[in-house]
């Protein structure tokens, strides 16, 4: 099937646009040299997935190989397509809220935050400060949980089994906090339009602080296992390199973009919730390779801890629910609101026709757009690197396919 068409497509990609050519051009060059592969008739077309241990769900990648070298890829997605956007058009704004948790189920809180804020914006409502702080705390906890899951599975893809269990052990602590807060561990449905449903339980701050003191040494533990491990370095350095310009051209966001040296984080660039009140850094990489993305995510966990620490210490008293009408009927209009989800820019584009249901709700999923960069990143690498790069992009198929 279509490694052929895929080549054509990427060549068409290149045909225009002078300014962001570099990486695409590089892949173009690769193609030129690979034009007459070693054993012409013996190119392997390999079907990786949808049932494959390293595709993080039901991603299917069709690899065109020369020996073990990747000549081209084509992603076949949609195996988990549930029509979230169609469902949104047939549910009220409130009823749709739990559905967003099912997209990126590893970062359900972030999804909920983006959705609630988008609707609030459309309603012209602002959540009260206390709710904003709770949102920040939970979202950042969720960011850590998501990165932990990423780290475990990514390391497992590269062959290091043990970090998976370490990260899952520590992720458990976060999930326990979620469970105590809202009763659910994974698909939390923690936020409501206009604020939060639940006041924090007694001892919430203490739990969060306990987690922070518990988790700080654990990050170092992960790093001792991997950061200076020679095999890890060899497997990740200069693998899946994508330059900043290419990343921007391909719409890549999140840690993948930042690892390529673009210092851009929506929490800083266009602050939402209460993020403008906290002091934190945006970790940036230089090479845009898998190792940099690893380092960026590790540092992001630390920065998230900083944010949580500040938020917990300064959490204001007050209401947790803004003035929201009983029946949510936003005025006619449209809104695009995006947040920095663990995987990148998560945007909601909502068109309201003034009724209780969204007329059109579009989710801009970070994983979906980031996954598009896979082809550019893996060309000319080996099969083993494809696995590493899929892991480093950090996709969640629930979000890719929606």
């Amino acid at each position: 099937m279509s490694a052929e068409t895929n080549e054509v497509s990427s060549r068409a990609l290149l045909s225009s646009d002078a300014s962001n050519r570099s990486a695409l051009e590089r892949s173009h060059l690769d193609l030129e040299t690979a034009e007459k592969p070693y054993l012409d008739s013996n190119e392997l077309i390999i079907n990786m997935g949808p049932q494959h241990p390293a595709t993080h769900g039901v991603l299917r990648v069709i690899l065109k190989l020369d020996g073990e070298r990747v000549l081209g890829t084509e992603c076949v997605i949609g195996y988990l397509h549930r029509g979230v956007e169609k469902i949104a058009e047939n549910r009220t704004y409130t009823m749709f809220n739990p559905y967003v948790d099912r997209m990126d189920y590893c970062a359900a809180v972030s999804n909920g935050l983006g959705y609630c804020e988008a609707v609030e914006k459309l309603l012209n409502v602002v959540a009260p400060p206390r709710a904003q702080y709770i949102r920040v705390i939970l979202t950042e906890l969720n960011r850590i949980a998501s990165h932990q899951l990423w780290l475990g599975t990514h390391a497992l893809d590269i062959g290091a089994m043990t970090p998976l269990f370490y990260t899952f052990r520590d992720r458990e602590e976060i999930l326990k906090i979620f469970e105590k807060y809202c009763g659910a561990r994974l698909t939390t449905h923690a936020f409501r339009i206009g604020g939060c449903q639940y006041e924090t339980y007694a001892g919430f701050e203490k739990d969060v602080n306990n987690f922070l003191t518990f988790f700080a040494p654990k990050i170092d533990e992960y790093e001792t296992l991997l950061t200076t491990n020679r095999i890890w370095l060899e497997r990740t350095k200069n693998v899946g390199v994508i330059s900043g310009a290419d990343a921007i051209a391909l719409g890549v966001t999140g840690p993948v973009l930042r690892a390529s040296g673009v210092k851009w984080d929506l929490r800083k660039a266009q602050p939402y919730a209460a993020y403008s009140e906290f002091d934190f850094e945006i970790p940036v990489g230089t090479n845009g390779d898998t190792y940099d993305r690893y380092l960026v995510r590790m540092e992001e966990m630390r920065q998230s801890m900083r944010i949580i620490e500040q938020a917990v210490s300064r959490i204001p008293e007050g209401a947790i629910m803004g003035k929201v009408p009983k029946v949510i009927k936003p005025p006619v209009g449209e809104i695009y609101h995006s947040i920095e989800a663990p995987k990148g820019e998560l945007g909601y584009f909502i068109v309201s026709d003034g009724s209780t249901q969204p007329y059109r709700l579009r989710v801009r999923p970070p994983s979906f757009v980031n996954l598009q960069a896979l082809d550019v990143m893996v060309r000319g690498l080996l099969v083993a690197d494809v696995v590493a790069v899929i892991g480093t992009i950090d996709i969640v198929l629930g979000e890719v396919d929606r």
Partner: protein
Amino acid sequence: MVPITTLHYLVVAAALFVLGAIGVLTRRNVVIVLMSIELILNAVNLNLVAFSRMWGNLHGQIFAIFIVVDAAAEAAAGLGILIAFFRNKETVNIDEIDLLKW
């Protein structure tokens, strides 16, 4: 039971040699032709070692070792040629290898 003499080994070696010769002369697949050559070399080796045993010295065995070395070199070069050939003509059939240059 008849004791095993050098003659027995010679018969086995002759049989292997003839089998190898048949393979070389009749098969189309170059890989199998190369394998038949290995068969021939083995037949020769068996003869050499049998004679070495017969004469009670080790020169035959030394020859056998040299032939093994030669077989390794031959396999490496032969298979290299085969791959180079396959890359250009996409065939491993010996009767299609009929051009001196392509």
